[in-house]
């Protein structure tokens, strides 16, 4: 019961953050921009009499690009909306009135976590549907496996949220933000090193990327999501900048699930044992 009460109030708290509305506004602005770009592109394609196959592939690449932007927004929003919820409330003492109620602390933490998951699910769903709707309207294409792609992007956010929660039970708001973004940055960089390693067939560079993904599997999840969503041709030809030369395996997805579970368990344990 405590979980749902906390989830409800956290969802409402998160939904009240200016950050969320700014991210939605940014998303909306992006969709308009994206749609306008697609519109002119489609016109140009028609004028130049481009082959339908190439036209389709370029449209596919555009969808992936759109979803990449959504992914970036989701990452930022996950971290920025949630970094303050634990450490901030501990620092201000807001948590004291809650933690003295007959609700175990693990339920308080899990309730907050669920509240954020609710908000993030809604955000990512709206944006993914938005991008696909725009490309479908303008160019007649959508991403290939939308549901799988959505779930992987969603999972990326859940990993980030769990890591943020784990750090927030130890550190201040600012430190939590720096650490989580830093880890994600590391994964992002590692991902690119891995891509270049795959192009140049440098095995050690690929290994660096894999290690980065082990440290933080977020970027690997995105690359798997991109793989699921873009056209098979793009995946095979490796022509899109978001193509996945080195595709993270399903094992990596399982690893990410384990990773986020461990982060959540750490958060719950630490929150249950620390002074408030």
């Amino acid at each position, binding site marked *: 019961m405590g979980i749902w*009460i906390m989830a409800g109030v956290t969802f409402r708290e998160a939904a009240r953050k200016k950050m969320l509305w700014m991210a939605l506004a940014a998303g909306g602005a992006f969709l308009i921009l994206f749609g306008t770009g697609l519109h002119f592109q489609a016109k140009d394609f028609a004028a130049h009499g481009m082959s339908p196959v190439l036209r389709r592939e370029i449209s596919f690449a555009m969808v992936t690009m759109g979803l990449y932007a959504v992914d970036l927004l989701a990452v930022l929003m996950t971290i920025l909306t949630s970094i303050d919820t634990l450490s901030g409330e501990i620092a*201000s003492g807001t948590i004291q009135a809650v933690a003295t*109620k*007959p609700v175990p602390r693990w339920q308080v933490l899990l309730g907050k976590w669920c509240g954020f998951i609710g908000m993030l699910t809604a955000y990512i769903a709206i944006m993914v549907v938005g991008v696909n709707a725009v490309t479908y309207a303008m160019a007649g294409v959508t991403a290939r496996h939308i549901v799988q792609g959505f779930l992987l992007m969603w999972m990326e956010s859940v990993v980030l949220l769990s890591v943020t929660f784990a750090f927030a039970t130890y550190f201040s708001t600012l430190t939590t933000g720096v650490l989580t973004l830093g880890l994600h940055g590391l994964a992002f960089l590692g991902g690119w090193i891995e891509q270049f390693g795959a192009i140049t067939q440098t095995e050690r560079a690929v290994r660096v990327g894999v290690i980065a993904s082990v440290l933080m599997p977020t970027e690997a999840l995105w690359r798997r999501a991109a793989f699921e969503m873009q056209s098979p041709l793009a995946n095979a030809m490796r022509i899109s900048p978001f193509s996945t030369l080195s595709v993270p395996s399903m094992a990596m997805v399982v690893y990410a699930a384990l990773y986020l579970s461990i982060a959540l368990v750490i958060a719950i344990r630490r929150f249950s044992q620390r002074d408030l």
Partner: protein
Amino acid sequence: MEMSRSSDLAIWTRRLRKVYSGKVAVRNLTLDVPRGEVFGFLGPNGAGKSTSVKMLLGLVFPTSGEAEILGYPAGDVKTRSKVGFLPEHFRFYDWLTPVELLKLHGRLYGMSHARLRERVPVLLDLVGLTPHRDKRLRDFSKGMLQRIGLAQALLNEPELIFLDEPTSGLDPVGRRLVRDIIRAQRDRGATVLLNSHLLGEVEITCDRVAFIKDGEVVEARKLNSDVEQQTTVSIRAGNVTAEVVSGLSRWTSIVRWEGEHLRLTLSSSGVLPEILRYLVAKEVDVYEVTPQRFSLEERFLEIVGHDGGL
């Protein structure tokens, strides 16, 4: 003297200690607070009052020692439904209205919707916030936040209430309100632990006080009853001889002759007329007889030192 743990104690602690990264916040807290008592916790800032309360509530884990609340280990989740707590600086999500805040906390207490519908208006009325029931907390003053925090602490009709500096941020009307509420809670049979450095406040409301300094109880005493049991009287008089002073030992062993004042500590004020007859018979000129009340403030300053709390 080691008292046995007993179910008629609201609070029982033995040698509670809290060390924060090498710094001792609470050194040795041993305390028995019977049920139904209004207990004042006095001490300068940084003496460890808040940390002690937080240990009793299970917010802070003691480094060593034991504590029980209403017969259960401190922090026990089920016991919390019988406990109310007003934190020192109450704050909560500022987008809530007072009604929403009380409902949320009531649901966390596990109260039914029907009971909340009945309790929320009563409490809003009690703390004088009914006219502000539709405002958001962000538009609340510090005093109003304190009032809604107090209402939140009383929602579940708790058996034990912790009030950490409840009157900070309140004007005299608000302070009076807190006093009345504490009295009403005592009349209801609840135990109240009041953390405060406002001595006047404590003097009026508490049955018993403990002075805490450097994380240790240095003295615990009953209030009110002490005044009846023991009276200090200051007598402004002239023509007092050494013989007169020594003659007073019949009634009291504590006599001081300072300038124009005789200070006597009597076991009861009943002997005062007798003493006055004696003084008059000895041709002492009596100008003024003033009973001296036990002063919490004086005692506080004696205990913590005049630079305490800096």
